[in-house]
């Protein structure tokens, strides 16, 4: 901004009607345009409110209560330029898009000032037409944005209300997605089970529960009391462990052994039921 224009801005503050307020682009300014003067600090704040040149232009038109369709291009251009000059002084990097609009306004203005030849009337439309259309379009968008802003917004105006439920636990966990590789592994396990099953059937006699019950009882006969895990022969594998467990359950059910535990989660002990235990069992049953 040149020195002359700076003085023009400062002269605007002490508005005097008799003398020119200042000179903008060599033209003397006598009248402060309506609603135009804004202190630079305020303008800086306002700049953030304008989202771009279209917004500023629309603001100028609306503040002057002018019809977009009857766009007085000269006045708007002048006002617009005054703003842009102030902006350039305050926030130079903002100016590019605003300058583009300034150039467009100047172009329209110059075309408007050219004498209209009769030929132009039909062939060439109003040079303002495209700008007017863009302004109308932009106005719809700006209005839409304002309506959007007025809508109740999550976290700003309302919060989602939820209630706790334990229904999910009743429903059980949803199975996770399965990959093809995992499907293959699952199949391999089934095949292993088939093998184990075949094996198990062959050895059924060997791992009979009744037989295991007897062997456990004889162990207890010899050792009196044993820790729970001492009753299992790990070398027999899964099937053997299960058979032993079933045997213990069966023995317990029949009241032939007694399971004891000092406290929760502590070591389980197994011993043979005595006469006394048997009486309790019988009465209790």
């Amino acid at each position, binding site marked *: 901004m040149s020195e002359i224009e700076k003085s023009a801005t400062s002269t605007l503050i002490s508005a005097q009607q008799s003398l020119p307020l200042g000179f903008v682009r060599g033209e003397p300014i006598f009248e402060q345009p309506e609603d135009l003067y804004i202190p630079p600090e305020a303008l800086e704040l306002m700049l953030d409110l304008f989202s771009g040149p279209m917004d500023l232009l629309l603001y100028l038109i609306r503040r002057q209560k002018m019809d977009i369709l009857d766009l007085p291009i000269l006045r708007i251009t002048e006002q617009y330029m005054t703003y842009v000059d102030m902006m350039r002084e305050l926030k130079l990097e903002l100016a590019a*898009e605003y300058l583009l609009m300034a150039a467009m306004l100047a172009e329209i203005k110059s075309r408007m000032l050219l004498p209209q030849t009769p030929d132009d009337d039909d062939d060439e439309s109003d040079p303002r037409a495209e700008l007017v259309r863009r302004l109308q379009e932009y106005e719809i968008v700006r209005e839409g944005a304002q309506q959007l802003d007025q809508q109740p917004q999550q976290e700003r105006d309302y*919060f989602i209300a939820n209630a706790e439920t334990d229904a999910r636990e009743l429903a059980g966990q949803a199975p996770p997605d399965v990959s093809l590789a995992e499907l293959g592994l699952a199949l391999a396990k089934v095949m292993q089970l088939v093998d184990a099953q075949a094996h198990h059937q062959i050895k059924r006699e060997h791992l009979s529960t009744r037989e295991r019950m007897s062997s456990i009882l004889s162990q207890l006969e010899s050792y009196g009391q044993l820790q729970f895990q001492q009753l299992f022969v790990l070398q027999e594998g899964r099937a053997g462990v299960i058979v032993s467990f079933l045997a213990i359950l069966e023995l317990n059910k029949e009241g032939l052994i007694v399971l004891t535990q000092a406290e929760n989660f502590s070591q389980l002990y197994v011993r043979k039921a005595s006469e006394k235990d048997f009486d309790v069992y019988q009465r209790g049953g």
Partner: protein
Amino acid sequence: MISDQQLKQLIEAAIFAAEQPVTVEQLLGGVLANFSLNRPRVRQVLEALQHDYQDRGIELVEVATGYRFQTRPELGPALVHMWPERAPRYSAALLETLALIAWRQPVTRGEIEAVRGVSVSTQIMKTLQERGWVKVVGHKEVPGRPALYATTKAFLDYFSLTSISDLPALTQERPALVELDAVNEQADLLTDTRERDAEEENEA
């Protein structure tokens, strides 16, 4: 059979317990699957529930993806004090970009810039996509194949909308260039402003 009261309780509980808004179809296919009920009946119950809640701090609202319970908007200014962080405030530029995408979708970045008269900031587009309000739905088959943006249902939900037509401004048609007939009508207007401009120019 299920009594009216049980039905109301069940629907209320289902909407409260769901993490997302619930549609009538979801209710019918889910919690109400074992009862032979029809859509009008469920809608009726939902209306009754809305009525029940009208004096409460919580309200039952319908948004784009279904029904949900939420706190009353009037309570928002007081409720935000429950959390130290402030609610996000969206800039005019972001809201305009969002409104424009909602209005003209599917729309390219270039088209957004043409209407707004400013370049669209990458940050704004990133924010809109991160929030799940805007997504790329395709590419325009022109040189450069620019991405076509559209708004999502999450956007409608966030702004308490059931559809974009809830925003009256965005139901308007795109203004057309002034047509020849209109130009003839405006010819007088045009001359008027020219004279007026010329006068002002002379005065200056």
